[in-house]
């Protein structure tokens, strides 16, 4: 079991999460050339080693997070929310 330290819930089993994919993908503008879209949708660097990837805490807070993980050893180096500022924004909404 991989243990992922969710920024919102604390350390949880990876079985609570769904793997998203490569977190470095940037989708191009809607009117960008088809080559740019093919690159974003289909092409992957497929790193063996440390990569940034998205996970969805489906059976927890349901937030998307970005995990820096080694794909060979499964060691996790960092975890952060996928959307910057979401934590403080939510705190504000709750008040």
């Amino acid at each position: 079991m991989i243990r992922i330290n969710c920024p919102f819930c604390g350390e949880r089993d990876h079985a609570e999460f769904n793997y998203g994919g490569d977190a470095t993908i940037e989708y191009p503008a809607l009117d960008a050339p088809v080559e740019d879209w093919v690159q974003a949708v289909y092409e992957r660097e497929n790193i063996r080693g440390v990569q940034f990837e998205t996970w969805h805490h489906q059976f927890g807070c349901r937030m998307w997070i970005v995990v820096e993980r080694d794909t060979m050893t499964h060691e996790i180096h960092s975890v952060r929310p996928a959307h910057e500022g979401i934590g403080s924004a939510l705190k504000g909404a709750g008040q």
Partner: protein
Amino acid sequence: MTRYNAWNVFKNGLTGQKGWDRAWRDPEPRSEYDVIIVGAGLHGLATAYYLAKEHGLKNVAVVEKGWLGGGNAGRNTTIVRSNYMLPGNRQFYEKSLSLWENLTNELNYNVMFSQRAHITLLHSPAARDAAARRYNTMRNTGSDGELWDLAKLKKEVPHLNYNNSRFPIMGAAVQPRAGNARHDAVAWGYARGADMQGVDILQNREVTAIKRENGRVTGVETSRGFIKGKKVALAVAGNSSRLWQMAGFNTLPIETHKLQAFVSEPLKPLLDQVVVFGVGHAHFYISQSDKGGMVFGGDIDWYKSYAQRGNLPLVQDVAECAVSMMPCIGRVRLLRHWSGVMDMSMDGSPFICKTPIDNLYLNAGWNYGGFKASPASGWYFSDLIANDRPDPVIAGHTLDRFQRGYIIDERGAGPDPKLHG
């Protein structure tokens, strides 16, 4: 090389088994090869065999980082079937099944191919309709396929859980000519067959770089020296992206995921066929090996990984499927379990194609269907390498099919590699 036949078995039985040659040599590399194949797995070895046998190219090397057949060749569930529907895949896997049917004779090596039938359980009218369409397509294109009702299925496979109220079994889609084979024997048979024709299998030489000059590949740098080659062909499922980057490219439509499988302690004969259960995200397939072990597996681990070891949540998922579909094996103990790294492609179909470098060829993206595909993979890949043009059957299995809009997505799962099984 001593052929394997009844006379030689008899003769060596009387002479202390001293007349057998080793099955393949352990040669030093030659100064230059016509073709260098990277990866001595089933696909690489089959490619080398057919290059020599069908295309007369005998100055061929297969370079392997470990020992031959030590990767996914030994990390699968040995299932052979051709129940694919889409154009290209349909003909390709049918060709593969027809090659399997004569493989033992072809290689003079008993690959223990057993056409015991492949049974896909059906749990809803919609699944039955989809199976009818798929299996009718198969029958109309020269293959075999049957739909079994519940009475027939109960008679043929009595030990399934027919009282499962969550996923009641309604019947099955069956391919009688499908079955399984002995995985090691396939690797050893192709290796021996290729070696007999002069192919050099160079083990314990990890490729560390692919050398290029003036837009062409000149050979491969290995952990034990440079090997020069006129053509280089990649067949390294799981690590295709890494080799691709060694050749100077950036990205492939592939992610590497790991797939686990399991074998139990040996039992007396229990299951005569390959049985598959798949509903939503539950996926389970099981057969019984000739030694009696129940061989079974499920889905990939759902996250990208190059580690050749599995993780426990998937073990639990597979065990849950096992006891819900075949409760009688609930107390059987596991003997071994293993994990292999897969090229999961963006549409679930493979690549056998030329590359932007004229004398570099790619064989990749087999998802978890590579075992059954290996004879046809070698057949068509060797044809591509020898003749520098794709056979019409594999003409669609190119890297640019995504850009052209001609994806080959059997599941209709979309561009997410982990969803293609």
